[in-house]
């Protein structure tokens, strides 16, 4: 036994806790999703069994791992939810609305408990929620009351009823040869290196029998031990056969706590008699609950590192291509062709690799949507409004990094919609609207971007009020007409808020200015549509590809710039003589109509060389909002690695980021949306 170093132990435990939090996150995400699905099935005669099974498994696991870290509030909550789910699975009760509510409240509280522990804050109270859960669970037979007395003793049949043989073996375990063992395991770094840790021990124990209890115990000198109580009919040689040091076991003779007497009655009453279950043979591996799934949990930082490495590869390949080009004269045509082919093949493979890694980072937007579902319920209940939430396109995938950054801003928009946008049922009916307000969250992949919309059919943004407030703050002149874009500008101005009281629903922490800044920092755009009495819609457009993009390289006054290819509709060559002046603007004939022109040199205060006979233009936007941006020369198209520019000293309008073309010189990337804005403001 070697955990003598207290620092080692506490470090170990800290790592263990991190794993616990990560696992909780995963299970709670699954729980949230399933509870929403469950809600839809309230009142149905037959509730989807697979759903109940999955929820049961989640709560069972949450209970187990919470016990392992000694977070008993979480353990208790999970236990009660598990009990209710058990009853539901065994069709001892019909799913009721209150039941789902209680489960949702339970899951929320569980989440809060874990979060509180994580942030070292006092834990929220759980008695009220537990009472609710007990109430719904005790709506039926007394069996579940018996359940509540013994810890995990009655747990069985974690797989769907289809796995009969397994259930049979489980029953067999509770037969006459079953014994209760107290097993103690003290982890050490040496064992951990071999892959032997408390989770693997727990897994083994569950393979051979029924894990009744699991809890940690802190001993002197910071040593930690884990105690398990397991019911198994396996011979004690099984423990020895694992060859784990620091694993001690001893039979437990008391029958009460082990709950063995209750086991047979549970089995008899609730399970059909098993024909083929072979009594007490080899340990049956437990399938779904502990089986390593085909999913790997990956640190986002590692994926960032992968992307960075790919970025370096892209640059190296570009350099290679440059060198190859210069070699052309020195090698034979055949050799050069071979070299070219290989280089091109590498380019293709790199692109595939890049796309592969990007896919790994993608998660479904649904993750955020589900969280919002709970927020909306709470807010609706608090404000007494009736709200239907419509979620569209939740399978749309976006980069995990975007999910992390956008969760708070999107939450803010949703809160705003519920608090300010949607009216109460009475107000709505008085206006001839349906009593239930509708909030729609929609996600869609469009080209190289992902679109996220938050729309409500409420009262729309009060332009008059916003204008009045803006005037009072000196932001606009009198009687200025406000279109949606101007409205957005105003409400996103720092410190601008039309509510005097900061109500719980919104107005604190994240403001509209932070929302817009976050969106723009991610290279995206936010826009607003609102109509008085009809509703409001916020649309956030975010680029899918964070790191690598196709770009057009242009030259102005001897300086190179990069323009994201996705923003460019077309490139054309224009003769200076074709340019016509119209007041302050320049236009050129274009596709049967005219195209307004803006000169990049002018926008950036660079030298504008006018004596050329012809110059190049790249067209952004389309239709009536098409705009031509004039440069000296369009040099070509390149794949670039996008690097952010975050220091305030160099955050200027019109520049979205920077890249390098292989010669270690910084090339600035243009912000097309801002260019358009500057052109408009001239």
């Amino acid at each position, binding site marked *: 036994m070697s955990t003598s170093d207290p620092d080692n132990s506490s470090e170990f435990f800290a790592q263990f806790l991190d794993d616990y939090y990560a696992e909780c996150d995963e299970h709670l995400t699954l729980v949230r999703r399933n509870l929403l699905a469950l809600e839809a099935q309230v009142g149905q005669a037959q509730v989807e069994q697979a759903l109940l099974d999955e929820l049961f498994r989640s709560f069972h696991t949450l209970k187990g791992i919470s016990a392992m870290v000694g977070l008993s509030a979480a353990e208790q909550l999970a236990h009660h939810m598990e009990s209710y789910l058990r009853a539901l699975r065994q069709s001892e009760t019909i799913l009721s609305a209150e039941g789902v509510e209680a489960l949702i409240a339970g899951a929320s509280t569980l989440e809060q408990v874990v979060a509180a522990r994580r942030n070292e804050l006092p834990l929220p109270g759980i008695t009220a929620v537990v009472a609710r859960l007990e109430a719904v669970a005790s709506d039926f037979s007394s069996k579940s009351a018996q359940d509540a007395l013994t810890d995990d003793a009655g747990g069985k049949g974690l797989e769907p009823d289809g796995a009969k043989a397994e259930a049979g073996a489980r029953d067999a375990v509770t037969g006459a040869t079953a014994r209760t063992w107290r097993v103690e395991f003290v982890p050490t770094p040496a064992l951990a290196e071999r892959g032997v840790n408390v989770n693997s021990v727990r897994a083994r124990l569950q393979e051979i029998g029924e894990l009744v209890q699991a809890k940690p115990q802190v001993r002197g000198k910071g040593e930690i031990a884990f105690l398990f109580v397991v019911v198994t009919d396996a011979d004690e040689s099984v423990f020895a056969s694992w060859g784990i040091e620091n694993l001690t076991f001893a039979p437990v003779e008391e029958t009460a706590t082990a709950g063995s007497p209750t086991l047979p009655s549970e089995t008899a009453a609730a399970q059909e008699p098993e024909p083929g279950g072979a009594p007490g043979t080899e340990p049956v591996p437990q399938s779904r609950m502990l089986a390593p799934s085909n999913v790997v949990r990956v640190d986002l930082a590692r994926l960032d590192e992968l992307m960075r490495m790919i970025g370096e590869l892209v640059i190296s390949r570009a350099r290679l291509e440059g060198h190859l080009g210069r070699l052309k004269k020195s090698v034979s045509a055949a050799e050069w062709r071979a070299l070219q082919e290989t280089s091109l093949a590498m380019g293709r493979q790199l692109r595939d690799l890049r796309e592969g890694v990007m896919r790994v980072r993608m998660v479904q937007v649904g993750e955020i949507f589900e969280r919002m579902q709970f927020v909306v319920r709470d807010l609706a209940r608090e404000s007494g409004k009736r709200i239907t939430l419509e979620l569209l396109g939740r399978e749309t995938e976006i980069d995990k990094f975007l999910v992390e950054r956008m969760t708070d801003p999107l939450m803010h928009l949703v809160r705003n919609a519920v608090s300010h946008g949607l009216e109460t049922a009475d107000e709505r009916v008085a206006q001839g609207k349906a009593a239930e307000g509708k909030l729609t969250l929609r996600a869609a992949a469009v080209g190289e971007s992902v679109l996220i919309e938050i729309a409500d059919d409420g009262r729309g943004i009060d332009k008059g009020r916003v204008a009045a407030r803006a005037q009072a703050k000196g932001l606009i002149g009198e009687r200025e007409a406000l279109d949606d874009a101007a409205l957005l500008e105003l409400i996103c101005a720092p410190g601008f808020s039309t509510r005097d009281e900061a109500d719980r629903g919104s107005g604190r922490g994240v403001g509209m200015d932070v929302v817009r800044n976050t969106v723009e920092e991610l290279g995206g755009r936010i826009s607003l549509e609102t109509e008085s009495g009809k509703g409001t819609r916020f649309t956030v457009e975010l680029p899918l590809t964070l790191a690598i993009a196709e770009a057009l390289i242009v030259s102005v006054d001897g*300086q190179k710039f990069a323009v994201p290819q996705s923003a460019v509709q077309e490139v054309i060559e224009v003769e200076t003589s074709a340019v016509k002046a119209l007041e302050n603007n320049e236009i050129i004939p274009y596709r049967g109509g005219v195209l307004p022109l803006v000169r990049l040199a002018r926008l*950036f205060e660079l030298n504008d060389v006018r004596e050329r006979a012809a110059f190049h233009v790249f067209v952004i936007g389309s239709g009536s909002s098409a705009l031509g941006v004039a440069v000296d020369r369009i040099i070509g198209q390149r794949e670039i690695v996008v*690097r952010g*520019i975050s*220091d305030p*000293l160099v955050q200027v309008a019109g520049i979205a*980021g*920077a890249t390098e073309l292989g010669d*270690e010189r*910084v090339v600035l990337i243009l912000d097309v949306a801002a260019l358009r804005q500057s052109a408009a403001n001239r």
Partner: protein
Amino acid sequence: MSKQSDSEPFILFELAGTTYGVRSRFVQQVEMVEHVTPVPNASDAVEGVVFARGQVVPALNLRVRFGFEKAPFDLRSRLIVVNTGGRVVGMIVDTAREFLSIPAAAIGAPPEALTGLSGKYLEGIATLDRRLVLILNLDEVIDIANTQTVVDGEPEAA
């Protein structure tokens, strides 16, 4: 009286004939000045951006920042990249090649008589063997709010 632990290593650089010091724990690297890409519409003191360790970093022209005459870059010019307060910023100086440990006791407060903004950029003045080293207040130097060029000791809108 001054213990070893009261001395702190500094990197010294020259600007318009005066010696300044920066605490070396804030200095990420010192490079020659190469390939500075100008950033349109940035303030005058910002020479542009450069790549430093794979990151795009702004390069401040300290001469402009402190109101001195601009001087062309030569082989002795250096870019001192500092990392402080979560920001990485480069400063272009005339030359930089000395490391020196300066005891805390040798650093005194800048005299009240220093007028204008210059006093703002200094944390203190070190007196060593009749040599004066002006200790920079990095956070003020790189603060965007101070992006105004100094003319005759008075701020002028950029």
